[in-house]
């Protein structure tokens, strides 16, 4: 039973991190219908920025709380700037290009960013400082449920709540929903569509950076290549839940995280990713537009 709970929580926290990244994918897809392949790299840059800031601050002897706060803020700011810049350079000129062009551009951006970090930093695995200490929480359970699992879950839940509030109740959220529905019409009613798209990239990138900080501190090491697999997994999760739908992204991520965790725990750790992708294929076979996705209407 203990083992089950352990797997459950590790699956949930894994899913929560996928959700933070998947939201960026699903928001961008919802608004401009683009698979932002460079999103995984934004997450990696968030992790690297937080790593650099946290290490520098700890060398200069700052208290832990300040380190965590500053590293988080720096990661969010820089990742958001990267997201914004990538959108301006690689996607904005391609708004009216054929559908595959922005995809190739995104793949190019992703290769570029990986090698940029590789050249500017290192190809080695770097030890990430332990930002979330193992505190004694609920003593009998503490052995099973790590404090970082809890922090990850709580952070994700708070981020989701804020995001839901922003999208449901603010002016920005309303404009985003309008843009997602029909870009031309949104433009006609006086919404600055370019700004809305930039805002989407900023929010999505900042969330991915928070995810980067959390997972790096959970795993304890980072590398220039971590963005690729995490990006693909998060994208899988977004598609699983129905891309374009925000609750779908969260649901898909949790299902994916739990599947991976239980599959590793009970079957074999070698085939972890195989299970993830097989689950995706299975679900899409029966629900071709994802769990919560809307069926595409075909225009004739």
């Amino acid at each position: 039973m203990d083992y089950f709970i352990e797997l459950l929580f590790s699956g949930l926290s894994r899913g929560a991190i996928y959700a933070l990244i998947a939201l960026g994918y699903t928001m961008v897809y919802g608004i401009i219908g683009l698979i932002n392949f460079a999103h995984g790299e934004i997450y990696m840059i968030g992790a690297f920025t937080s790593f650099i800031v946290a290490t520098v601050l700890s060398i200069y002897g700052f208290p832990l709380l300040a380190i965590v706060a500053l590293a988080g803020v720096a990661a969010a700011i820089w990742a958001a700037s990267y997201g914004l810049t990538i959108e301006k350079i690689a996607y904005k000129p391609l708004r009216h290009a054929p559908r595959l062009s922005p995809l190739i551009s995104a793949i190019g951006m992703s290769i570029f960013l990986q090698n940029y970090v590789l050249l500017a930093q290192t190809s080695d695995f770097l030890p990430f400082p332990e930002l979330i200490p193992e505190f004694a929480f609920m003593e009998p359970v503490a052995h099973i449920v790590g404090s970082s699992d809890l922090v990850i879950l709580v952070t994700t839940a708070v981020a989701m709540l804020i995001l839901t509030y922003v999208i449901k109740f603010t002016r920005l959220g309303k404009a985003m929903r309008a843009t997602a529905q029909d870009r031309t019409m949104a433009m006609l009613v006086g919404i600055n569509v370019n700004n809305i798209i930039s805002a989407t990239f900023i929010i999505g990138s900042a969330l991915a950076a928070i995810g980067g900080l959390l997972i790096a501190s959970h795993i304890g090491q980072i590398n220039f290549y971590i963005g690729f697999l995490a990006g693909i997994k998060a994208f899988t999760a977004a598609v699983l839940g129905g891309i374009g739908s925000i609750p779908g992204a969260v649901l898909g991520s949790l299902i994916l995280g739990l599947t991976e965790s239980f599959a590793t725990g009970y079957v074999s750790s070698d085939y972890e990713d195989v299970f993830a992708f097989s689950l995706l294929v299975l679900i899409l076979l029966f629900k071709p537009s994802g769990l919560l996705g809307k069926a595409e209407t075909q225009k004739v």
Partner: protein
Amino acid sequence: MFSLNELKKGALISLWFVFLTFPIMVIKVDPIERIVQWRWTNALMVGIGTFIVYCIIQFAKYRKSLKSTEESEEDSKEQASFIHKILANTKQRNMLFMVLAAIILIFPHLFSTYQTNIMTTALMYVVLGLGLNIVVGMAGLLDLGFVAFYAVGAYSYALLNHHFGLGFWEVLPIGGGLAAIAGILLGYPVLRLRGDYLAIVTLGFGEIIRLVLENWNEFSKGPSGISNISRPEFFGIEMSLEMSILYIYYIMVGFMIFTIFVVNRLQDSRLGRAWIALREDEIACQAMGIDKQKTKLTAFSLGAFWAGIVGVIFAAKTTFINPASFTFLESAIILSIVVLGGMGSIVGVIIGALVLILMPEYLRALSEYRMLAFGAILVMMMVFRPQGLIANVRRTYRFEKNS
């Protein structure tokens, strides 16, 4: 030419990039020794570099605006399809083909075996690109897991050779056939999916194949791969290494010519037109009485067939394969060849493959930066020339403008 305002804007952009790249470029930490290294010169370089790039882009824009006022738009369109113009003229086309054939035949005798090897690789990618072009360019099905079929071909040769001692020429059709079957197996369940869902499922399929190869040790020897695969034989004559490199080169040339011939014929066939119809409008295509399922499946399996055959050749060429050769990056490169060259255009795909594969090889002097440049070039190509190097010409009727 450069107004003060533009210069100011350029300075601001450089400042933004200095800020953007600050943590990654300037700070380098050693967490074990606890040393922080501040590399301020990098910040300066980023700033100056950005400013120069900005000036170049502005200058190019300025030139373009000058040009477009001088020439009418029609002229530039004519220029864009320069190669197609040559191809349309039978005499010039034959000349071009003869020159190309001569170059291809003489090439290995003029240059070292190293160059021949690189050229063989490039030709392999030409065929891979043409295979994927059937799926993506003609039928409009976005396939991100194309490398899986390539892996099926390579592994079928490696395993059949290892366990049963089958030779290259026996496995060549088997490898292609197995890959085509894999194409049907993947294609059948995903027929209902569209666009991006199809993309991600094919990506997942590619990763599943790679992970299975990596983890199923009894079957594929896992990450350590299979070595000592025999090279192709020539009626039982023993060949030196150099000879066999030459031999593979000529096999690949012959095979490429065959592929170009088949794909070219396919394009104008009933099936090819059905693919193009499917790409343009699925519903209208169904309404015309085209069997959507069959058309999609043939696209998938034919594309996979070429990939499987190139896989067999790849295994024979390197004599060693492991799962690391079949990553997503490989699929991305093949897809880039198709899109960069110009979707659906055979000439475009050939040129795209040669540019994308040969460029990183000859950029080896800057070996560290070559993948960086590769990424940047992909982005730049898409931004400045989204239709690809050689856009496909489609037969269209044009009305003459009345003056």
